[in-house]
């Protein structure tokens, strides 16, 4: 919050848009789980509460310009902007001008959570999912592939024994010798939002830990193939992240709500180091449908910001959560400038100005899969607003 719009009273360094009004949103106590496994990590609420909070903030802002910062997400999802959260955000920011939603790209670049490949008809590709012997927490994996293809999933244990096969359209429970549920697998045909096929593998975290395999091979057989391309993501698990076996494909590691058509997604670089290198954790695009996201990047490495719980009133942190609010602040400045000039900015105009004014070298290309169109430039962005007819 301090990075986007702090007044400098705590950290002695004001944020990017220090005169902005701030709206805090507290999720309803009735929506917070107070018992069971859902309690862990539930402080920020869920996808439904997020959409409701966004709608609430823009309603409260009424016709005033409003820029919302979101530093939340998971790893799974369709990664093509068709999830209902992403469709909802797109709908809200296009409903009227002077609205923007800025989202952190995610910090999962180096976590080994993505795999991709092309399956050939009559052949197969193996993915190895490493769960870890001491990882008894939440483990979940999604595979997405083209609606015109038909895969068959075969699960294989680490001794190379076939566990079972799940055809397109089928769901199955994988049980142990003692009839204990280990995994639930759903091979779903035609996702209603994009028509693509998807495979979900869900580990039963309440099963006896010793009966769960520490490594599982996912064999994707090409039954009928037109395209063959697939992408797989392992769901986020902060208490023990499982991963794919190397070699890793760290592309397409944007967060679950960071692939929308109208959101502004932000990567992180290190502004303290010569050459402004990328932060090792900053997730990479593009989206699964090939769109260029993240749009832009900002300093997110070793960033100081106000924190009242520390002795000196500031804390130093790294993450795309530190980068996104810098861009949120820049958008607030752009909207304030537009308001002062009696101009309205649509979300498309905001996105275009940020992209066109972004600094290069780095990146050395027009669009980089982690820097985006470049590094955010506050002065140029505001000037571009002034230059608008």
């Amino acid at each position: 919050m301090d990075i986007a719009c702090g007044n400098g009273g705590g950290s002695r360094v004001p944020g990017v848009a220090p005169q902005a009004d701030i709206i805090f949103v507290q999720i309803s106590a009735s929506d917070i789980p107070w018992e069971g496994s859902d309690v862990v990590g539930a402080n920020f609420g869920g996808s439904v509460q997020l959409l409701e909070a966004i709608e609430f903030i823009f309603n409260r802002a009424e016709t005033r310009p409003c820029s919302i910062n979101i530093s939340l997400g998971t790893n799974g999802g369709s990664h093509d902007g068709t999830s209902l959260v992403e469709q909802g955000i797109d709908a809200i920011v296009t409903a009227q001008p002077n609205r923007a939603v800025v989202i952190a790209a995610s910090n999962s670049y180096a976590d080994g959570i993505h795999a991709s490949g092309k399956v050939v008809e009559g052949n197969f590709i193996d993915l190895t999912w490493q769960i870890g012997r001491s990882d008894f927490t939440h483990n979940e994996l999604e595979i997405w592939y083209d609606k015109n293809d038909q895969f068959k999933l075969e699960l294989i244990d680490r001794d190379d024994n076939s566990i079972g096969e799940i055809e397109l359209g089928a769901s199955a429970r994988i049980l142990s010798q003692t009839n204990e549920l280990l995994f639930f697998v759903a091979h779903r045909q035609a996702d209603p939002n994009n028509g693509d096929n998807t495979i979900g593998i869900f580990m039963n975290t309440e099963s006896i830990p010793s009966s769960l395999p520490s490594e599982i091979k996912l064999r994707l057989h090409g039954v009928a193939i037109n395209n063959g391309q697939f992408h797989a993501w392992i769901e986020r698990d902060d208490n023990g992240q499982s991963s794919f076996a190397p070699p890793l494909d760290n592309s397409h590691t944007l967060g679950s709500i960071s692939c929308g058509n109208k959101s502004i997604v932000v990567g992180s670089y290190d502004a303290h180091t010569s050459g402004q290198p990328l932060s090792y954790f900053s997730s990479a695009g593009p989206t699964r449908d090939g769109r260029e996201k993240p749009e832009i990047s900002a300093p997110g490495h070793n960033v100081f910001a106000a924190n009242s719980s520390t002795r000196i009133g500031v804390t130093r942190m790294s993450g795309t959560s530190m980068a996104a609010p810098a861009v949120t602040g820049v958008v607030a400045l752009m909207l304030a400038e537009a308001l002062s000039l009696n101009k309205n900015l649509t979300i498309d105009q905001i996105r275009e100005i940020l992209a066109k004014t972004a600094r290069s070298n780095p990146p050395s290309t027009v669009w980089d899969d982690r820097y985006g169109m470049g590094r955010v430039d506050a002065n140029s962005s505001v000037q571009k607003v002034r230059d608008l007819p």
Partner: protein
Amino acid sequence: MQGWYKAIIIVVATSFFILPIPKYAMSSYPHENTSKYRVEYVSPESSKLKLSSEALRALDREDFLVATLKVAKEGYIPTGIEVRTWISPSIFTANIPREILERLDDDPAVVSIEPAYKLRSY
């Protein structure tokens, strides 16, 4: 010496055939299975429902599902659903009683259902 080999071969061969065949090998499951796991096919969940571990838990334990819905007709609200917030004319958040999920799957005006899932900070 030759007789000793024969004895071993006979013992090994016999033990292979008399080992108890696991119960699941006799199931209708067509794929040759290992001794550690068994596959049990079940009816697929609603085709309009986005599955996740959280959704599966909620379906198992809760009386209603907190979800985001997309409908084909602007402003349409399926009977039995409690709307929480309208996000756009065709997208809203809702509390959905578990018992009407099957009916929603058959409702052509319901496009998709995305159960609430936990979001974590970066």
